[in-house]
């Protein structure tokens, strides 16, 4: 396959997100400007201007009309996807890290970093249909875990919130009361910072990637560990194929150490693993730095990766990918 290279960001990529129909690809980077691309040919559709810091995460509503972005400038902004106008800005007193719309797009979960003596929080905001009625109040604030919370996502039926971060523990919270329901097992769980957490397309499983050089598949209701994919690189990003029993894992050595070594030793490929057999299927090379973001197209026929090198690489799979046998 010949990947499409998109060089719209001047700084490292942080997050990639497809809309539900898989025709738009949203990218976040440390250069303050979330960007939307056409996911088939990689043409740039637009840039959302307004943030004043690195953008860590984004999510798009089911109808592809609203975009929510979380940034290190201590704001979370709501955007109109089509025009790029800013609809609302939630202000916090510490950098925002993860954002996600709930099923139905009526709520959004936002995490904030520990900052200037404040602990990290998970907050739930109500999202109004009409942006003029939008208010900034949190309907739920969860405090507790030490260290940064790198990802928080909604569990099945919005009943729970699943979070993971620097303390390597995956937690299941009640999304109404804020009660801690479950924690992942310390023995079998991750040993280092969890850098990414994604849901399977039906929401029944979650995949976490950690700097302890492994990715793990969990049941999203019970938090039981199902599979472990061991690799030889710190995992920054991972995703589950919606079409085949594959997972893709990306990462590489820490960005601060990259300049000291050869790029071949940095292990900057995206690695494909068989979801059930936990065996490696193959690797896709290309980036000149660690992979920070990975996303499968919802149709499972293409995937994109964003790297520390500032490039997004959009790969449409060759036909032989779909017939790979283990």
């Amino acid at each position, binding site marked *: *396959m*010949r*990947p*499409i*290279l*998109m*060089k*719209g960001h001047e700084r490292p990529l942080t997050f990639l997100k497809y809309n539900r*129909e898989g*025709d*738009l690809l949203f990218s976040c980077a440390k250069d303050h*400007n979330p*960007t939307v*691309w*056409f996911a*088939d*040919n*990689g*043409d*740039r*559709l*637009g*840039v*959302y*201007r307004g943030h004043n810091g690195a953008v860590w995460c984004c999510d798009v509503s089911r*109808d*592809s009309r609203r975009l929510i972005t979380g940034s290190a400038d201590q704001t979370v902004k709501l955007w109109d996807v*089509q*025009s*790029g106008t800013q609809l609302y800005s939630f202000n916090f007193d510490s950098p925002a890290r993860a954002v996600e719309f709930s099923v139905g797009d009526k709520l959004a979960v936002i995490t904030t970093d520990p900052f200037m003596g404040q602990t990290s929080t998970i907050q739930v905001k109500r999202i109004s249909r009409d942006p003029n009625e939008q208010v900034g109040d949190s309907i739920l604030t969860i405090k507790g875990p030490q260290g940064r919370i790198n990802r928080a996502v909604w569990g099945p039926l919005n009943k729970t919130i699943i979070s993971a971060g620097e303390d390597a523990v995956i937690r299941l919270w009640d999304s109404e009361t804020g009660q801690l329901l479950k924690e992942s097992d310390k023995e079998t769980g991750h040993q280092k910072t969890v850098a990414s957490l994604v849901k399977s397309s039906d929401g029944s499983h979650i995949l976490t990637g950690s700097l302890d050089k492994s990715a793990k598949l969990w049941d999203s209701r019970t938090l039981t560990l199902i599979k472990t994919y061991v690799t*030889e690189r710190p995992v920054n990003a991972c995703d589950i194929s919606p079409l085949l029993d594959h997972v893709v894992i990306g990462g590489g050595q820490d960005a601060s150490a990259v300049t000291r*070594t*050869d790029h*071949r*030793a940095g292990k900057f*490929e995206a690695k*494909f693993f068989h979801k059930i057999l936990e*065996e*490696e*299927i*193959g*690797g*896709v*090379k*290309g980036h000149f730095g660690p992979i920070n973001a990975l996303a499968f197209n919802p149709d499972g026929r293409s995937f994109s990766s964003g790297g520390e090198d500032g490039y997004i*690489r959009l*790969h449409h*799979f*060759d036909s032989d*990918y779909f017939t*790979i*046998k*283990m």
Partner: protein
Amino acid sequence: MAVDLGRAPASKLRWGELDEDDAEEMDFFLPPRIVIGPDENGLKKVIEYKFNDDGKKVKVTTTIQIRKLARARLSKRALERRTWAKFGDAVHEDASSRLTMVSTEEILLERPRAPGSKAEEPKSAGDPLAAMVKSGASLMVCRTCGKKGDHWTAKCPYKDLAQPIDSTIDKPPTAETSTGAAGKTTYVPPGMRAGAADKGGSEMRRRNDENSVRVTNLSEDTREPDLHELFRTFGPVSRVYVAVDQKTGVSRGFGFVNFVHREDAEKAINKLNGYGYDNLILRVEWATPRPN
């Protein structure tokens, strides 16, 4: 009057050869370009007029079949989004702004081993080293990173980093002692020393770099994925390379394939030497080691 259907007739008049001055003044007399269709069958007709070499007026009818790509199964909403106006920084960009490019490099999903083969099963048949490993694991020493009992040199995770190993390093040490015992001070080349013929040669070959096969007489269209496809049937392939002319980007007609196992390379040579591939007869042989 030449009326042509199908593809545009390759008239001898090329735009580059046209004398600009007289083309301009003549164009004035030509009827305008007419576009008909596309009709329900996707046929579009374009009628143009131009002057041929002899200065005669020629009517050129080009019929084009327009097909919609079947794969583009976009939803109504997605189709609507395709027509959205660009915004932000994207407004000012035109086709020349090279933000989005298609990679010039063909990227493969690199399999860690040949499909169908079992994971990490050393080929033990007729391999004395592998048999010895089974009895005592200490024999497994990686030449690249020096780690014992963990992996072979070929499987070393730091393989890419290693300098090309100087062949003098792994001279059989027994040879040294034997010559020393004989009391001779003259230099004996490694190949002549005791035990070199049966051991040194085969062991050198075992090194991964040595299982390299040169493929010549490739057609210009053959690319690395094609070669990989052709050779992977014989066993795990660690590297495929097709020489490409730097300037023109055209294949130079030869390439190299590295196998993980020497036996597979041998099989490939036996099978594919003289094999007809893309109208040409392949020549497959051991790559001569580079002198360095």
